[in-house]
């Protein structure tokens, strides 16, 4: 034991030794075999090795690590549970990874003012579990909520099935403590007080994919559980009827808590997965609809939803009869991505968003893309807010199929962008969709964003190479001209 430590020390480079001095010898990894599991996150197509992984225990240690990296020009990035689906935590430049996994405490809960303070490594679902005995919960519920961290949720502005009614992460963040890329610690909206005077830095940081600062403490809004909740499952013989039912429900003036859709291929996958429900195999689409709120008001909304479904040729529609049944339906939906593993060796999930009214048109286009690429595409998505998740099924052992899948993914995003949509609703850009940013933003618009990055992260040491496409020639030239003018 002693011997192997000594051996390690002789191989350590000077930076690793200095970082170890900050966090202690048990809180750093730098041997190649230890670093392997940090070479990617939930986006597994691209891999790169970090220089080291450090596990700070508090804000001061994070700040000290950041200061050290900043002074010594070492690229660095923050990592939570590593569940991100767009590659935001992949160390493209041999970064020092600052894992926030050991800063995982619930610091305080203030029920009167409906807020809780957590460390970034605190797991999303644990917050709800910690406050549920008092009847409270934390609303953003990404499918990975049993393992993903709230720090990571802030970085990605994570969504979830219930954000149709309750909003995404940014709508639930009240305050942030942030370590800036130079090591300085700032507190924004300390105390979780709204409308802090000045530019909305909290809004900018949320969803900045770890490129503006490292969040070390988060004040979140907590909500009281709704008094009642009813869930409806509707089976359709064709996708178009299902899509029209979605529009019908929204047009009826109902704001469902969730409105999810799965197509035939997706249903095949979830039924072969760990949580089968027994959905009929020959249906074309299903809708999972949830309404919550005051009990007295729910029944009439459910009646209206049933009527809408019937008027759109639903084959069968039913209301969950028990909490168990409801739980079963949701487990089937929430494990949908992983379930694709049961019907395909590999899958790639995309995350486009479209105006709801374009749903039939875009689904048709996706099925064409499937035909063109020769790859099956399953659709599991948040139909209520137009957030599509095409799952492209492929086999990476077949030469050329991974590339084909990536191309099909890009084509799906293009289809979303073409109808005025977005390339990502909740998974983030990361490295995966960098180039696709050009589908929706002009050079000037991208430059407006990178200028903001320069304010926070002027040396671009923090999570470099993410979020923005490689600068086009035109922009490079412009920058040179600008710099020359400035120099004069």
């Amino acid at each position, binding site marked *: 034991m002693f011997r192997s430590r000594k051996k390690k020390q002789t191989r350590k480079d000077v930076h690793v030794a200095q970082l170890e001095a900050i966090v202690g010898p048990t809180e750093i990894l730098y041997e190649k075999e230890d670093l392997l599991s940090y070479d990617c996150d939930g986006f597994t197509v691209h891999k790169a090795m970090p220089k080291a992984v450090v596990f700070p225990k508090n804000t001061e240690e994070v700040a000290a690590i950041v200061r050290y990296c900043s002074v010594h020009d070492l690229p660095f990035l923050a990592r939570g549970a590593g569940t991100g689906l767009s590659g935001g935590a992949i160390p493209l430049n041999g970064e020092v990874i600052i894992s926030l996994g050991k800063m995982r405490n619930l610091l305080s809960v*203030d*029920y*009167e*003012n409906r807020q809780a303070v957590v460390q970034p490594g605190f797991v999303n679902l644990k917050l709800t579990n910690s406050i549920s005995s008092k*009847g409270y919960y934390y609303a953003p519920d990404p499918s990975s909520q049993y393992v993903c961290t709230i720090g990571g949720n802030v970085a*990605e502005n994570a*969504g979830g099935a219930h*954000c149709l009614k309750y*909003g*995404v992460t*940014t*709508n639930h963040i009240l305050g942030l403590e942030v370590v800036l890329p130079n090591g300085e610690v*700032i*507190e924004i909206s300390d105390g*979780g*007080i*709204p*409308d*802090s*005077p*000045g530019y*909305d*830095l909290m*809004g900018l940081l949320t*969803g*900045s994919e770890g490129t503006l600062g490292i969040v070390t403490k988060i004040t979140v809004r907590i909500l*009281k*559980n*709704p008094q009642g909740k009813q869930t409806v499952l509707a089976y359709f013989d064709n996708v178009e009827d299902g899509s029209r039912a979605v529009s019908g429900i*929204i047009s009826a003036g*109902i*704001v469902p808590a969730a409105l999810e859709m799965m197509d035939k291929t997706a249903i095949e996958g979830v039924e072969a997965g760990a949580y089968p429900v027994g959905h009929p195999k020959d249906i074309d689409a299903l809708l999972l609809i949830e309404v919550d*709120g*005051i009990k*007295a*008001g729910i*029944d009439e*909304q459910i009646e209206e939803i049933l009527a809408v479904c019937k008027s759109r040729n639903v084959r069968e529609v039913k209301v969950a009869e028990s909490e168990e049944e409801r739980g079963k339906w949701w487990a089937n939906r929430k494990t949908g991505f992983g379930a694709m593993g049961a019907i395909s060796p590999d899958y790639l999930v995309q995350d486009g*968003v479209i*105006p*709801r*009214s374009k749903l039939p048109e875009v689904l048709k286009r996706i099925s064409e893309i499937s035909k063109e690429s020769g790859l099956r595409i399953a659709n599991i998505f948040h139909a209520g*807010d*137009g957030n599509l998740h095409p799952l492209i099924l492929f086999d990476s052992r077949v030469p050329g199929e991974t590339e084909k899948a990536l191309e099909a993914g890009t084509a799906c995003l293009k289809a979303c962008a073409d109808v*005025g949509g*977005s*390339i990502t*609703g*909740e998974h983030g*850009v990361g490295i995966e969709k960098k180039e696709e940013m050009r589908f*929706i*933003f002009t050079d*000037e618009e991208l430059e*407006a*964003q990178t*200028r*903001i990055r*320069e*304010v926070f992260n002027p040396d671009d040491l923090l999570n470099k190479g993410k*979020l923005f496409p490689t600068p086009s020639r035109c922009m490079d030239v412009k920058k040179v001209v600008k710099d020359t003018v400035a120099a004069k």
Partner: protein
Amino acid sequence: MEIQDMPQASTAASSIFKDEKFGNDGAEVVAPESEADIADILRKANKDGKKVAIISGGTKRGYGGLKNDYDILLSLSQYKGVVEHTAGDMTVTVRPGTTIKELQDFLREFDQMASIDPAWPEQATIGGVIAANESGPKRMKYGSARDLVIGLRVVYPDGTVIRTGGKVVKNVAGYDMNKLFIGSMGTLGVITEITMKLRPLPKCESLVKLFVSKEQLQDLKTFVVKIQDSMIEPATLEMVNPALSKKLFNRDTYTLLAAFEDVENSVRYQEQWIKDNKPEGMAMDVSSETEATAFWNAFSKIAPNSLTDYESNRTRAVVKIGSKNMNVFEWLAEAETLQKANLLTIEMHGGLGHGITNAICTGVESEVKQAIVRLRYRAEDKKGYAIVKHLPYTLRHEIDVWGHKPAYFFLFEGIKKKNDPNNTLNHQRFVGGI
């Protein structure tokens, strides 16, 4: 419904440029009717080193600003109207000069609404409301501008037109640049289009009022905690102090306004819940649907704005206090301490579900100034803030309407410098003289 002495806004738009009481005026007034014209004006001003102030409805000239005159006053009042509305998508794209009322009237035809209830909907425009991040009591249920805006078009000082966000309700592509412009007081760019997500008009609404004597305040506080801990879902829980209750209801009591907006069964259930659970001896009144609408309309006009405040013998100020929800009770108590017969009146209302309190101070100048300083001292002591949303120009040189600069002010400066390096837009209008 006893609404007394409600001030009426001047309808003569030209008059807003004539008086000097609120500053933020311009040597030259331009009212472009296209985005291209706006871009041309900015490009030229930016090149010529001219300073530009932005105005739209003209209700917020008393909100920040250390200049009496800018070179150019860019009015967006003529750049108005709905650009795009797809009812099925529940989104609308609108030009900045559209008044809140015009927007809501348009959407009502589709049983939809923009879920924002700022003051003076007939005069205030959506552009101004977004730029100043204005909100009303119902933000407790519906959130504020930052929760509703999904996309913007912005003209930068150099004339570049930038789109932020998009037209879809969920979007994480790139930085959330919408947030940068909401509440930035026009210091970073001119907003030329706003895309918002909409909500269906509630099928039923009602307003429950509880009239509370000073002696009953402690009971009320306990009751409010009980409401918050219950599963009922009020759209607002707004506390009103006696001075404002007097004006609104002709009663010398505190008043709790609890609004409910949902399907009818749910609204009736929640009214009944309040009735069954309220402390004994507390007077309760339930407004009908039409009364509730009329009440909120009147409520939106209680604060002075730069179109209505022409008084010369009394100073009027509106202070926005940000604090934790339950601190509202402390501000109510503070208002009682500060008020002085014939010298200072404070009409106050604060949201127990959203933490924003508004104090309308009216009186002799020295007392109004003292009240601002005192409220700010108390608010900052509790990690909150007190900013002055409405104050005559001369006093804005004596009192920093934005309060102390945060430790991270350098980031604000950095952002301003990147977007507007020549300080062309609304210079000195914002925090720390940005």
